């Protein structure tokens, strides 16, 4: 059930979205849920739908980008926009715009290589760039440090936390853990994935697959004598949509 300003939400707005759109799927899930989803304004609700849709779009875009899967020790980036750190992360250069640097990953993906967690952060930044005007994005994100869940900007820091949700929704970040991974390939200890539609997931290095396929791939990366299968955790990572919407209102509307 969706509550806006304390009242049950008039579902008429759903008609604004196409029949099989991401927004409709999310609306329907929230509407029929026994749990209450509380929003202060309709704008908050619509912003969450929009950002979730852009997270999914950015996942498809990154999957097409030709960015390779490389472990942190061997990570690479286009040094015209980023400085590679000793840890293997990418730090936005002081003389370039964040929007141009994020876009470059999608344009010159072959110049980049990193692990799955950093790829998730790239997805979030690209989604935000698809929502915010370029100038506002550059103003809000003048310092970007891409390195798994470390160094997250305060506006998106919540994506680094995993919580048990009431429902699983498209645009959620999930995690498949591989407890018996081969100790020589620790980067296959798990896979961060974006829920694209409840059936397909995007994970960097694995592509767009069903969760069963990703689990089967991770199981091939287990060590000798492994007994436990990889499995999908019941937690999700989400941005604080309302906080980002407030920043949007403050800077755009």
């Amino acid at each position, binding site marked *: 059930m969706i509550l806006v300003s304390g009242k049950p939400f008039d579902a008429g707005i759903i008609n604004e979205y196409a029949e099989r759109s991401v927004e409709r799927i999310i609306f329907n899930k929230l509407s029929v849920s026994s749990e209450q989803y509380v929003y202060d304004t309709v704008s908050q609700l619509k912003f969450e739908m929009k950002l979730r849709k852009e997270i999914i779009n950015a996942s498809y875009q990154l999957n097409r980008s030709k960015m390779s899967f490389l472990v942190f020790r061997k990570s690479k980036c286009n040094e015209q926009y980023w400085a590679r750190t000793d*840890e293997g992360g990418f730090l936005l250069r002081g003389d370039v715009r964040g929007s141009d640097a994020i876009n470059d990953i999608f344009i010159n993906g072959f110049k980049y290589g990193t692990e799955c967690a950093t790829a998730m952060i790239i997805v979030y930044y690209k989604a935000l760039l698809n929502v915010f005007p370029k100038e506002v994005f550059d103003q809000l994100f003048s310092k970007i440090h891409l390195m*798994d*869940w*470390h160094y997250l900007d305060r506006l998106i820091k919540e994506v*680094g936390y995993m919580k048990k949700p009431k429902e699983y929704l498209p645009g959620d970040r999930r995690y498949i853990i591989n407890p018996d991974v081969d*100790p020589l390939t*620790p980067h296959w200890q798990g896979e961060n994935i974006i829920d694209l539609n409840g059936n397909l997931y995007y994970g960097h290095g694995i592509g767009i697959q069903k969760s069963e396929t990703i689990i089967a791939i991770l199981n091939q990366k287990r060590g*000798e004598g492994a007994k436990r299968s990889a499995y999908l955790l019941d*937690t999700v990572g989400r941005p604080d949509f309302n906080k980002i919407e407030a920043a949007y209102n403050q800077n755009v509307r």
Partner: protein
Amino acid sequence: MNHLSSNFLDRYRRNKGTYQLKAVVKEMGEKNKNKLVYYINDKKLFFGSLFILMPEIDDLNLYEQLNIRNITALKICAKITEDEKLKEKVESLSSENRENMFYAIKWMVNTGHYDDGLNNKFDEVLDAAVSQMIKTYEDKTILPAVAEMIFKRNRKNQFTHDLIWAFFESRDPYVLEIIARYLRSSNKKDVELASNLLSCNLSDEGLHMMRPKSYSAYLSWLKENSPFIYFSGESFQQTSHPSPWRVNLSKKYLCQGPKVQNKKNTQPITAEAQSEQLQSFNQLNDTERILLSEYSYKMYKKNIHLWEKWIKSPVNRQMEIAKKGLGGIMK
């Protein structure tokens, strides 16, 4: 290289540097190959020196004269660094068995950690050796050395990701005690990292993070909760605030677990009653569950007879009493 190895090659490297070591090895290889092989096969040699001398070993084609430890170490290096040429040269030499592997990897870690930071490839091999030692051989003796490497690298903003993961994969709460020692460090970065690594998420919602305030406070917390902690498998690949170790609040609430001191003459509640109580307990919010579990265990330790009465009362009544705190039933 800080540690004082007594091997000639290690000493030479320490006193004259890598460049001079390579020069003297080249000269020795031409004049007295057997003596050089003796030094390289010496049990006191450090892995760092073997790693540095890999090009000279290749130039002088010493592979067949190397002992099992060195051949095994080179095989591991070839595998980790994906050096196909080296792999080809060492693959057929000496048989690889679990025991040989164990001793070679242990040697690589125990002597190699003194040279941590030598170069990216060396550190990569070292990380893999640590990971093998902990995950495959379940060796706990290297854990203090691994912690030292983690904190040393962190001070220099170097790559710690895989080492931290391997360290926690030991799945031994002993790691918490090792990290806690760094809360006393005079280095601010040590304290920050230790505090982060020891933070424990007490709730599923992720809203109740226990962050250690001091070494002594943390040890008290650990002592209180050690019967109920379990390994969660969380890592920095998964979340920005991993809690590799968590507290099982249900067990703490019921004062159950192999490490909970059994009180004599207790009349434990039946399995059926336990299940009912747990059902009600699990419907509470995180704050209430934390409060109730803490109160329960404190009472259990202080007055078992009162606890037996309390644990059988309805959960909402338990909560009322717990909220009154120590001023209530525990007087």
